[in-house]
C-alpha cells in the first residue's frame, strides 16, 4: 500500500515537472533557457518511462536525448548568441494565432474525451508483465529479430542526417570563402 502511494507521489511530481518544463520550453524568450527546460522535460519523462517498466528506453532517453541532442542544441544556441532571442507573443494575438489555439484546444478536448470513453474499464486492466519487461536485453533482442528492418533503417536515417550535417556545414564554410574572395 505504501508502495502505491510512493508511486503516485513520484508520478505526480514527474508529471508536473514534465508539464511545467514543456510549457517553459514553449514560452521562454531565450532559446537557451528553453533548451535547458527541455532537459528537465526529458529527465522527468525518463522517470515516467521507468514507472512504465521501460528501463532501456529511460536510459536511452537520458543518454541520447539528454546527452547528445541537448548538447548539440546548447552548443548551437551558444554559438549563435543573442541573434536567437525572440519576443514571444509580441504584437498581440493575430487571428491566425487565435485560430490555432482554438483548434489545438479542440483537438485536445477531443482526444481526452476519446480516451475517457475508452477508459471505461479497459485501460485500467494492465497486462501482467514479467520482471524483465523493457530490459536492455529484451529490447536488443527485439531489434535483432522482430524489428530487424526498423533497426537497420534507423541507422540509415542517422547516416543520412550525418551526411546532411556535413553538407550544411559546408554551406556555412563556403559562404565564408565567398565573403573572403
Amino acid at each position, binding site marked *: 500500500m505504501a508502495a502505491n502511494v510512493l508511486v503516485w507521489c513520484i508520478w505526480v511530481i514527474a508529471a508536473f515537472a514534465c508539464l511545467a518544463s514543456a510549457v517553459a520550453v514553449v514560452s521562454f524568450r531565450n532559446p537557451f533557457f528553453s533548451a535547458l527546460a527541455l532537459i528537465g522535460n526529458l529527465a522527468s519523462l525518463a522517470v515516467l518511462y521507468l514507472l512504465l517498466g521501460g528501463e532501456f528506453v529511460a536510459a536511452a532517453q537520458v543518454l541520447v536525448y539528454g546527452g547528445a541532442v541537448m548538447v548539440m542544441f546548447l552548443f548551437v544556441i551558444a554559438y549563435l548568441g543573442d541573434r536567437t532571442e525572440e519576443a514571444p507573443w509580441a504584437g498581440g494575438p493575430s487571428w491566425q494565432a487565435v485560430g490555432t489555439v482554438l483548434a489545438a484546444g479542440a483537438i485536445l478536448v477531443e482526444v481526452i474525451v476519446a480516451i475517457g470513453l475508452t477508459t471505461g474499464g479497459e485501460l485500467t486492466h494492465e497486462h501482467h508483465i514479467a520482471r524483465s519487461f523493457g530490459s536492455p536485453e529484451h529490447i536488443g533482442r527485439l531489434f*535483432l529479430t522482430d*524489428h530487424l*528492418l526498423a533497426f537497420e533503417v534507423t541507422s540509415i536515417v542517422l547516416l543520412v542526417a550525418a551526411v546532411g550535417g556535413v553538407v550544411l556545414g559546408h554551406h556555412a564554410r563556403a559562404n565564408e570563402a565567398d565573403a573572403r574572395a
Partner: protein
Amino acid sequence: MIHKPHVDWFALSPTLALLAAAGVLLLMAVLVPRPWRKASSALVCGAGFAAAFVFAVLLADKSPHGHAIVADAMFRDRWAAVASLIVAGCGIVAVLVSYGERWRELHVGEYYALLASAGAGMAFFVSASNLMTLFLGLEWFSISLYILCAIDYDLVGSLEAGLKYLVVGAVGSATLLFGSALVYGGTGQLDFDKIAAAGHTHDPLLVVGLAMVIAGLAFKSSAAPFHMWTPDAYQGAPTPVTAFMSSATKVAALVVTYRVLATAFPHEARLWTWAVAGIAIASIAIGNVAALTQRNVKRMLAYSSVSHAGFMLIPIAAANALGARALVYYLIPYCALSLGAFAIVAARERELGAPVTLDNLAGFAWERPFYGAAMATFMFGFLGFPLTGGFVGKFYAFAAAYRHGWWWLIVVGVAGTIVSAAYYLGVVRAMYMRDRMELQLAPAGGSPPRDLMLGAGVALCVAVSVGSFFAVQPLIDVAHAAAKSLPL
C-alpha cells in the same frame, strides 16, 4: 540464441540498389577527382535508379501473391513493386534534369547520394507493412529531401525552403507518429493487417489515431489544408529537386495512404472515405484558386500539384478496386507531366539566370520550339486534355468516384478543372502568344548551354505523357495487377 528473421533480399532489391548507389556515391564524393566527379556521380546515380527500376519490374513479375516478409515488417507485393517502379522512373528523369544544373562541384557527389537515398527511402516506404516501418520510411526520404532542398547555396531561398519544409514536415511526421501511437493503443498492434483484425469500428482511440495518420500522410502528399509548405519548398528548392519532390514524393505518399487505409482500416472505411473526400475537395479548391494568381511558374506548379493531389485523392476516397487502378494509372502520366514541366522551368532558369515567371516566358516557345511544344503538352496534360494520359487519369478518377456512388465528387473535379484552365493555358499563352517586345523584356542573351541530358529527360516525359494516352490497356493491366494486392 537469437533467431534472425528470414530476409527476402530480392524483395528489398530496389531499395538496396539505390542504397548501394548512395553508398558508392558518398565514397566517390571523397575519392574521385573533382573534374570527373560530376559525370561519374550522375552516371552512378542514374545506374542506381535504373537498377532499381529493373529490380522493381522483376519484383512485380515475381510477386503475384502479396505477403509480409522480414518478420512482417514489409510487404512483398505488386502494389509496392509498381510504386517503386514509378519512383525509380522519376529518379532517372530527375538525374537527367540535374545533370546540367550548375552545381558547385563540392557537393555534387553528396547531391546524387541524397537523391538515391531519397529514392531508396521511398521504395522502402511504399512497402512498409507496419506503423514503425511506415514512420521510419517516411523519415528516411523526408530527411533526405530536407537536405536536398537546402543543398544549393547559390540559390536565394534554398535554405529558407529547406527550413520551412523541415519544420512543417517534422510536424507532419509527429502527427503521424502520435496517430500511430493511438492506433497502437486502440488495438495493441503495429502491423497493418493485425490492426484490421483487431480494430473495432467505434473505438475512439482508433478513430482519432486514424484521423491523425491521415493528416500526417496528407502533409507528405501536400493535400490541403496540409499543403502550406508546398509553395515555399517547391519555389525555393533547386528545380531538379522540385521536379523529383513533386513527382516521386506524391507517388510514395498517395500509394501508401491507399495501402494504409485499405489494409489497416477496412472497418472504418465509412469514416475515412468521407475524410479523404473532404481533403480532396479542399485540395482541388485551394490549389486551383491559389494557382490562379501566381506569376512565378514554380510556385504556380506547386499549387497545381496541390490540386492534383486532390484529384488523386478522389480514387482513394472511392475505396474500390477501380479507384486503386485509377490511382496507379493517374500517377504515371502525372509524374511525367510534373517532371517535364519542372525540367523545362529548369531549362529556362539556366538560360535566364533568374527565377522563371509568366512574364519572362514570353516568346519562349518560338525560341526553343521543342521545349515550348513539350511545355504546352504538359500544360494541356495537367488540364486533362486528350492526347495525354492526364485525360485518361482524370476520367478514371471520376469513374471510380461514380462507382462509389459519389457523382458530386465528379462535379467538384469538373469545376476545379474549369478553373485550372485559366492558369495552365496562361503558360501556353505566355510562351506562344506574347511577344517579348510587347513586354519590353531584354532578350535572354546568348544561346543557352546545350543540354542533351535535359532534352532527353523532357523527351522521355513527353513520350510517357502522350504514350500513356494511347497505351491505356497495358498500363491498366499493370495497375490492375498492383491493385489486386489491396484488400478492396
